[in-house]
């Protein structure tokens, strides 16, 4: 699924975060958002997901059918992991499977993608920071959506998990999916394009 962004602007709390941002992402491509803190990476991702108002400009899905909205193609993984502490690890994921209409058989596989299988029946509240993050990310392995929007996905992950995430992202790109990810660390994925929000801002200032 491709995405074309034209002259997008973002205003938060009456302050212009960025302006006139235009870019394209084609299927199979990954775009990395970089820029210093506060340059608007998270804001852009939320705008793309439809979770933040678009002040100006347009976001278009390329090759989407008439009745498909952005919510139908996007999988968003933000700063927060959307995990319920009192539910067990697998209950957490099973819920999302059911809610997004995915067969429950996938849950075990998705957990295994981030080596969480042996923790399945623990209450999610006792997980360590990185384990929580991995549980959140395992939704990527569970729900099949063409466009991933990832906000600093590697935070708190150990090396093995970063590698697992890299594998998952590579597989997603290879099957024609696309990814837009904000990050301060290098994910080690080859052939990704980078969008520096700071330079945009510089241009605007």
């Amino acid at each position, binding site marked *: 699924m491709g995405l074309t962004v034209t002259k997008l602007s973002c205003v938060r709390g009456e302050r212009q975060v960025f302006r006139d941002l235009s870019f394209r992402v084609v299927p199979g491509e990954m775009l990395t958002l970089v820029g210093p803190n506060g340059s608007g990476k998270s804001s852009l991702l939320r705008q793309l*997901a439809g979770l933040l108002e678009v002040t100006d400009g347009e976001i278009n899905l390329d090759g989407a059918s008439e009745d498909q909205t952005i919510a139908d193609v996007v*999988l968003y993984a933000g*700063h927060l992991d959307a995990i319920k502490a009192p539910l067990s690890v697998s209950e957490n994921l099973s819920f999302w499977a059911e809610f997004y209409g995915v067969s429950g058989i996938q849950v075990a596989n998705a957990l295994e993608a981030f080596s969480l299988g042996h923790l399945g029946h623990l209450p999610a509240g006792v997980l360590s920071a990185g384990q929580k993050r991995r549980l959140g990310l395992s939704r990527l392995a569970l729900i099949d959506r063409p466009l991933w929007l990832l906000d600093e996905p590697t935070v708190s992950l150990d090396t093995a998990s970063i590698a697992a995430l890299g594998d998952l992202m590579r597989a997603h790109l290879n099957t024609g999916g696309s990814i837009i990810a904000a990050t301060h660390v290098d994910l080690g994925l080859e052939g990704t394009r980078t969008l520096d929000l700071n330079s945009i801002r510089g241009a605007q200032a």
Partner: protein
Amino acid sequence: MNAFLSLVRRDVRLATRVGGGGGMAVFFFLIVLSIVPFGIGPDLNLLTRIAPGMLWVALLLSALLTLDRLFQADQEDGTLDLLILAPQPLELTVLAKAVSHWLTTGLPLVIAAPALGLMLNLPLEGMLPLMGAMLVGSPALSLLGAVGAALSVGVRRGGLLISLLVLPFYVPVLIFGVSASRAALVAVPGDLGGQSLLLLGAVSLASLVVGPVGGAAALRVAIK
């Protein structure tokens, strides 16, 4: 439908895990009911007279106390974003939240009402109508409450704010509910109880529309 049910199931399960589910609501109810006599004095006649009203006010309060976290908890841990982005229409999602709220607060209180009524010396033969009125009216509390909870998403210390937003809308439920219960319990002449019950049902039906639609609209605005 599956998504709807899974959300209801999850929320009921969450409520059960963290707070003992309906049990906690009944406990609270019990405590409120028994604290009132401390406040207004132990005159049993007086208590019986105001009992239907007290039952309803306590029902209202325990709904209010739990509404607070209805969407707030989901917003704080990022779940709300994903609920909004999911394939299920947001209106259904709000309805599911309201249903699970009712299942863990309204319904247990309806079931416990006769026992509580006995504590207040209510006549036995009035219990069934009382339960009926509470059964018809209590869904409206959860449904209307969902709108308030959605409006105050993102505002910390939502507890009091929700009360302020929601209480005015609760007034009709309270009036018809009390009058339906009182007619059954205290035997008011005429058919007023039945009429109140009908009106109560109408309020509940209306909030079946207002709740999900209003709640979804409020969420969409609040999240952005």
